């Protein structure tokens, strides 16, 4: 797919505005077909499309997790609302929208509302940065990987703000844990990404995916993948690293005091982050939208094939996350931190060293001729 989503949106706006302008008198026509206005509207339309697509995707992801988790638990999961329960999460969302919004008396007004909103916004920004297929994004961001990780690491700040300002002991403890955990796992996450950067030689996600045309990185960089997945689980706060909302001891963790739409923000952002985590795994290690060469070309050449294959991979990765959630208990705070600082960081450093080795092997001339086997 050659045309980027942004250029599609841009030309769509341009066509519409030109059509409107053609029936208007001259001064207005020039005003309305102004290039700056078209660009601005194009950006807005682009953002709207992106937002709706990613939200729909997130909601389907929640449904996917519920159904999958149901089967892991020998039950069915949501199934009566809509076909196979597909409308269940829409019902949840609409209901939460209707619930009355409130703030506990003792809670801090600014932080209580700012926290979830900013958490939501920073999570959604990521969709604008991560490419889903070639040319999905507005243009080439040379440092898109770095930008994505920076935005991704805003979260503990906002979680802590909302936890602190909701003036609840459980929230506070959840916020503390969340901050400690996310900061601890930020380092191995970045280090494992460094391994990918070393091999690909670029911070641009498009380039990284393009580099994987011949071989996907999960084979050579398996150690980095493991570290990345573990750190990503911690960043996403999913079992086995979901201590901040450990239901058993901290009622609902940092969102104990949140209800209604603000709670929906948290809920949705969590899944947005889960989706983004799966995106990153696919982009960095599983070849993004590229497909191995043994896949028949008919399966990869239809329109939007890149997006479809990318999403398939994303859901498979997410299914693994669900599988882990269904079968492992959660760890304790000190264990988590000890694993983070004592095990993960050395392993991540080792993976960087291995990546250097991979780069050296890659320089061998034989390597470029290999067909892409999906590894």
């Amino acid at each position, binding site marked *: 797919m050659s045309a980027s989503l942004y250029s599609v949106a841009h030309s769509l706006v341009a066509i519409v505005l030109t059509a409107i302008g053609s029936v208007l008198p001259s001064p207005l026509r020039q005003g309305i077909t102004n290039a700056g206005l078209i660009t601005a509207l194009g950006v807005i339309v682009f953002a709207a499309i992106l937002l709706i697509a990613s939200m729909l995707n997130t909601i389907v992801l929640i449904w996917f997790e519920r159904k999958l988790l149901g089967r892991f638990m*020998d*039950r*069915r999961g949501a199934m009566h609302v809509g076909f196979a329960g597909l409308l269940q999460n829409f019902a949840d969302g609409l209901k939460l929208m209707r619930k009355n919004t409130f703030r506990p008396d003792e809670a801090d007004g600014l932080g209580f509302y700012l926290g979830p909103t900013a958490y939501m916004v920073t999570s959604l920004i990521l969709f604008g940065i991560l490419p889903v297929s070639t040319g999905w994004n507005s243009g080439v961001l040379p440092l898109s990987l770095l930008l994505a990780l920076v935005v991704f690491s805003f979260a503990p700040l906002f979680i802590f703000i909302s936890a602190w300002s909701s003036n609840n002991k459980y929230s506070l403890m959840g916020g503390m844990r969340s901050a400690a955990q996310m900061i601890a796992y930020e380092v191995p996450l970045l280090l494992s990404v460094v391994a990918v950067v070393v091999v690909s030689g670029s911070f641009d996600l498009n380039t990284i995916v393009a580099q994987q045309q011949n071989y996907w990185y999960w084979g050579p960089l398996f150690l980095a993948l493991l570290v990345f997945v573990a750190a990503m689980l911690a960043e996403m706060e999913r079992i086995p690293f979901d201590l901040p909302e450990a239901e058993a001891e901290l009622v609902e963790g940092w969102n104990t005091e949140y209800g209604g739409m603000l709670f929906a923000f948290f809920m949705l952002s969590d899944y947005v982050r889960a989706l983004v985590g799966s995106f990153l795994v696919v982009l960095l290690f599983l070849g993004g939208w590229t497909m191995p060469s043994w896949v028949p070309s008919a399966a990869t050449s239809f329109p939007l094939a890149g997006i479809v294959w990318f999403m398939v991979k994303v859901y498979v990765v997410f299914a693994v996350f669900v*599988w882990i959630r269904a079968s*492992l208990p959660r760890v304790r705070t000190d264990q988590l931190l000890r694993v983070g600082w004592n095990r993960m960081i050395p392993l991540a450093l080792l993976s960087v060293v291995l990546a250097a080795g991979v780069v050296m092997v890659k320089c061998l001339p034989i390597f470029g001729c290999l067909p892409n086997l999906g590894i």
Partner: protein
Amino acid sequence: MTEEALTPQTSGQDNPVLWVVRPMATAARQFLKSLVRPSTIIYPFERLEDPKFREEVAVAAGKPIGVGAVWDNYRGVHALNIATCISCNLCSFSCPDLCIEMVTVPGGNPKHPKKCPQIDYGKCSYCGFCSDACPEGCLSMTTRYELSVTKRSEMVYSPEKLFEVFERKLPMNPIRLERPANEDAILLDAPLCIGCNACARDCPTQCITMVDIPKPETPPGAKAPRRIWKEPVVNDSDCVRCGTCISVCPKECLFWGTRA
């Protein structure tokens, strides 16, 4: 006698990969099993009472849904056959939660109105004592268990409503306990009796008959006791041992005892 102390079968540090893989493999096995048919009963559409769950399908087929023959004894809502109820009060007496009240239903004569149990399901604890006590088998428990209402007062089931349940021909709890061989009988403290007929009048099974007794000769001058010269005789085989006669007796001359 005491065996070895238990220790975990697997020691702590053998193979770190296995430690995560083992539970994940177990979960995956379960996932594959439940892909075809999870053990969920799709409740309002499928029910555990349905014939397919009644049969012995579950464990044998590797699907933990039911073990069969579960509903034979179930204690749910009562079914009352008003026609055979004899108004003996035994259900009400035996209720530990005092949820049964005897209310008048049409069908009796004006002097002795027919009374049938009215059950408050907000108090009933489904212990089955009432249906065990019922001598005629007209009050029994069905497999009906769904009883959600929006008003508290709708939980009180009048005899008519219980009769409706009966008419639906729901499966009923078939256990009917045999009566013990050594049942006590109603005995009469004869000197106290005044022959008032109250016991015979109120006996729900009509098993008490008043028989004439000879009027004793009184010496002239002494005053003969003022009473009706009749005495109740209880037909033990018909008696349901409800105790109505004891409670209506004005002179408290009837009592429980073993007939010699």
